[in-house]
């Protein structure tokens, strides 16, 4: 067999192997296309669930605040009423009733203090809402990337970030209920530096 004939055979074999490899890759692309498309389709469901959790915890927190404010109003009215009553039994042999009034005022004040603690703890809702918005944003980012991969795999031009979809979400990516990066004392020092002279 001549050299050129050998070369031709080699080239043909290489081209054949190349075509086989390309077919394999195309086949693999097709195999992953479906799961990618399914994953991309599930992301909006996940973000809707997160948004739903936010809406429902917000609504529940508002209802709790309604009840707390009603309790506060009643306790304040109780304290007010008892405080007005107390002077009317001064000077008489009513020690027992004065003591009772004092105890009732004390109970009402304790109840009020407890409602204030409840209110303070409801701050969790704002912080967890931001955390969930962050999670939803990350999912939408994944969805956009998957969509761009699928676009390219299907042979279309990737429009880049111009076609990316993001619901407008506002959040602090570092929002945390427990850990604060900078302690209040350090913040205070920034605003009122201690005199180091």
């Amino acid at each position, binding site marked *: 067999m001549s050299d050129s004939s050998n070369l031709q055979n080699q080239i043909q074999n290489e081209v054949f192997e190349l075509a086989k490899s390309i077919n394999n890759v195309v086949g693999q692309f097709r195999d992953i296309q479906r799961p990618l498309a399914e994953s991309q389709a599930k992301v909006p469901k996940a973000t809707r669930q997160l948004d739903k959790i936010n809406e429902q915890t917000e609504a529940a927190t508002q209802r709790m605040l309604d009840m*707390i404010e009603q309790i506060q109003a009643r306790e304040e009215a109780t304290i007010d009423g008892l405080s007005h009553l107390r002077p009317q039994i001064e000077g008489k042999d009513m020690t027992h009733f004065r003591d009772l009034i004092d105890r009732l005022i004390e109970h009402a004040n304790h109840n009020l203090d407890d409602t204030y603690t409840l*209110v303070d703890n*409801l701050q969790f809702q704002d912080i967890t809402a931001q955390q969930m918005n962050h999670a939803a944003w990350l999912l939408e980012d994944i969805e956009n990337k998957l969509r761009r991969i699928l676009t390219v795999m299907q042979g279309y031009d990737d429009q880049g970030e111009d076609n990316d979809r993001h619901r*407008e979400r506002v959040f602090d990516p570092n929002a945390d209920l427990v850990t604060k990066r900078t302690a209040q004392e*350090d913040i205070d020092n920034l605003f009122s530096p201690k005199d180091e002279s």
Partner: protein
Amino acid sequence: MHDIKILAVDDSPTMRRIIINTLRRAGYNDIKEATDGKDALAKMKIDNYDFIITDWNMPEMDGLTFVHTLRATEEYKTLPILMVTTRSVKDDIVQALKAGVNNYIVKPFTPDTLKQKIEQILAD
């Protein structure tokens, strides 16, 4: 009772109610709300406020932009502003300081901290 008019700016309805509840407990009763910087500016055109409490992360106009806008306006150059936000990274706090906030609290806050910061700012 304290005789000052406060504007509480936060996109979270829950947080606005908590701030108002805390302020009422501390003796501040004249408190109005806004949902973000843009809403706050609109309300400030209608009414005068003695004190602003603002969040940072808000739609339409965030808290930092709101503070910059206020400080760039002659009328609001010395208006007391307290930022109350989840942002606790030092760079953010420095940004807020440079923008012109009078003080800064990180959420979740305690009622005593909120009360103290307001009193400190008003005393300055």
